[in-house]
């Protein structure tokens, strides 16, 4: 058996020594489970202002966490938490959540807006938000079935400049009305 | 003020000058007190220095000094201490927390029927030994007790 000797000198009880000597470093599941209190079991959120992480791409989560850690992306507590993890930890968590099934939400949505959003998506956003938002190009997050209130809060941050929009997104978003954007978000939220 | 106390608190020498200052009006009463408050003892950073400053370096260990304190204090902000000396003729008690940044916590002189007993609460920065020094009949005695402090963070 492989033994890890760190902590040996300071451990006191026999139990503590034996268990520590055998413990493997935190696994992806160990790291990720801790997030589930706020993001739901396996990253499927039940709270409308906290995003589901389940089924997001590894790249999307990884970039988001790194930007939280550096402060580039505004946050309330995510910045404080992300600073507690190494880049390797972040990658491990990103892989863990990317392997989960996309979380289906049930939320009250406006039918007319969904229809309008569907047509706008096709023409404007489809090049990056692939498959009706079920997938994303590179680090583009999956939008399908995401919580509407969460997406509205993020859009507000984009529009106020707090969160920086990627150039391609900015070109599409700038000409759109608030009503258009709202319709788009209803559409994404409706995709199962 | 009794001469033993002088030795205990200040070492020799300071007393005379102090009373002159008061009578000549050079010092206001509280300044006199500040001067009398044993600065070198209370500000000593090590147990050895603090002990020396109160003349307790050569004390004998005694089971007749009782220290009532928790074995395990959950919170170092207020650790309850109750100290009693059963040594006949005890006139003063000095209390130390050995690992505090300033080990000397209190020293107390009893007179006119006061029993050599004191009850108060002290801050403890970490687990430490409590040391109590008693003075009786011109001799010094000591006792110690270990108190572990487990402070939890949030």
């Amino acid at each position: 058996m492989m033994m890890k000797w760190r902590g040996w000198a300071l451990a006191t009880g026999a139990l503590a020594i034996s268990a520590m000597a055998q413990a493997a470093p935190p696994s992806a599941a160990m790291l990720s489970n801790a997030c589930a209190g706020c993001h739901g079991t396996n990253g499927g959120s039940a709270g409308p202002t906290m995003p589901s992480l389940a089924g997001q791409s590894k790249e999307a989560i990884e970039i988001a966490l790194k930007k939280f850690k550096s402060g580039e992306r505004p946050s309330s507590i995510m910045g404080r938490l992300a600073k507690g993890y190494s880049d390797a930890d972040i990658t491990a968590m990103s892989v863990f959540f990317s392997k989960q099934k996309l979380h289906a939400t049930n939320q009250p949505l406006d039918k007319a807006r969904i229809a309008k959003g569907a047509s706008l998506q096709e023409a404007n956003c489809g090049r990056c938000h692939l498959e009706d938002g079920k997938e994303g190009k590179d680090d583009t997050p999956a939008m399908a079935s995401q919580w509407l209130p969460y997406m509205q809060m993020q859009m507000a941050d984009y529009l106020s400049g707090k969160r920086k929009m990627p150039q391609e997104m900015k070109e599409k978003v700038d000409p759109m009305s608030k009503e258009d954007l709202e319709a788009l978000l209803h559409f994404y939220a409706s995709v199962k | 003020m009794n001469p033993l106390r002088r030795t205990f608190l200040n070492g020799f020498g300071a007393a005379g000058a102090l009373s002159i200052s008061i009578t000549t009006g050079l010092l206001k009463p509280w300044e006199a007190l500040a001067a009398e408050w044993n600065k070198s003892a209370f500000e000593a950073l090590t147990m050895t220095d603090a002990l020396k400053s109160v003349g307790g370096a050569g004390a004998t260990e005694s089971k007749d000094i009782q220290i009532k304190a928790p074995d395990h204090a959950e919170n170092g902000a207020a650790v309850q201490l109750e100290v009693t000396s059963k040594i006949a003729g005890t006139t003063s008690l000095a209390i130390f927390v050995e690992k505090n940044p300033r080990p000397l916590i209190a020293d107390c002189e009893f007179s006119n029927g006061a029993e050599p007993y004191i009850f108060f609460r002290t801050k403890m920065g970490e687990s430490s030994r409590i040391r109590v020094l008693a003075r009786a009949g011109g001799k010094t005695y000591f006792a110690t007790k270990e108190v572990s402090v487990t402070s939890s963070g949030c």
Partner: protein
Amino acid sequence: MTLDRRSFLKLIGAGAGAAGLPLIGRAAELMPKSGKRVVVIGGGYGGTIAAKYIRMADKSIEVVMIERNDHFVSCPFSNLYIGGILKDLNPLTIKYDKLAANHGVKVVQAEVTAIDAAAKVVTTSKGTVSYDRLIVSPGIDFRLDEIKGYDTAAMEAMPHAWKAGPQTVLLRKQLEAMKDGGTVVITVPLAPYRCPPGPYERACMVAHYLKQSKPKSKVVMLDANPDITSKGGLFKKGWKDNYASIIDYRPAKKVTEVDAKAMAVMIEGIEEVKGDVINIIPPQRAGQIAVAAGLVGDDKNWCPVNPTTFESTKQAGIHVIGDACVAGAMPKSGYSANSEAKICATNVVALLNGKETTELSGINTCYSYITDKDAVSVAGVYAVKEGKIIAVPNSGGVSPADFSATKIEAIYAESWLKNILTEMST
């Protein structure tokens, strides 16, 4: 050790003679065990999650969760009910039916009366249940001997409301019945106690209610601690901005005695403070069953555990999580209990399967409301270093001191509650 016959009889409670022996035996076995079984005591923030995550990790392990109530009421957010922001406790209440159905956790509603660590048997009011590993998540009980006069009768006059449920409702009713111009006294024990920022959030919520409905009233807070235990700067600002004329905070004031008839508390048995509504938050320790089972440490109050597996250092095969355990830097909070439960579950599964255990990685997040629309938070990431659970350096911390995020944090806090209760109940 050998026992002579007489001491043996005395030990098992037999009186007259050996004739009584066969009848005495232990209570009937409630559910015979076939394969590997984990028993979880307590269906709160820790117990539900431990039960669920063991089943998620290994369906071959049978999990029996024993809880005395058929439902659970969350302490987090119960201050909002006391402040009149929540109209009832329904949003804070969970049941266990979905946890049982979705994950095959066997939920037994019974009172645990004893734990036999050597025989690996738990005795409940309904019969015995044997286990291979036991997880104890009993929450807290009160050290009533440290407040003279605070007995079960006094609790009706001066509620603690520190276990959510009828006591929470009682405190709210007393506030509603109080005349304008009255004084509400809230007493805080020396740390450690369940939910470090909880008493100060409660002061905010009570003051919020008084400000709206009984503006001539006051809150006197008698805190045994020398200063606010958690989020100190934020609470001080919150009080100054919103409740400067209402909250009178008095630190280092330890209440040692109460007089329920006179509606008075005594500080150190010397200084009397009277109130129209008095909320006594008593000193605490691990839940009674943990004390009875010999799981508490030298301090006689809290349960020391291995920082990887949360296995008791007092009794092999028994793990302690949540408020009852000593988890180093992880505070006694609902989210910590949730995080500890998962760490414990992962390692209990490993131990039962003879696999390598995994080192801890934990989180705490905790929101406190200042007003109905403002909340502040504290967050932390935890790891093990040199055998101790520590906060990862340069991470975690509290909300911005300028209150620039309080509105948005109040919004996030609601989702926090929704998610954590959903995790426990589905």
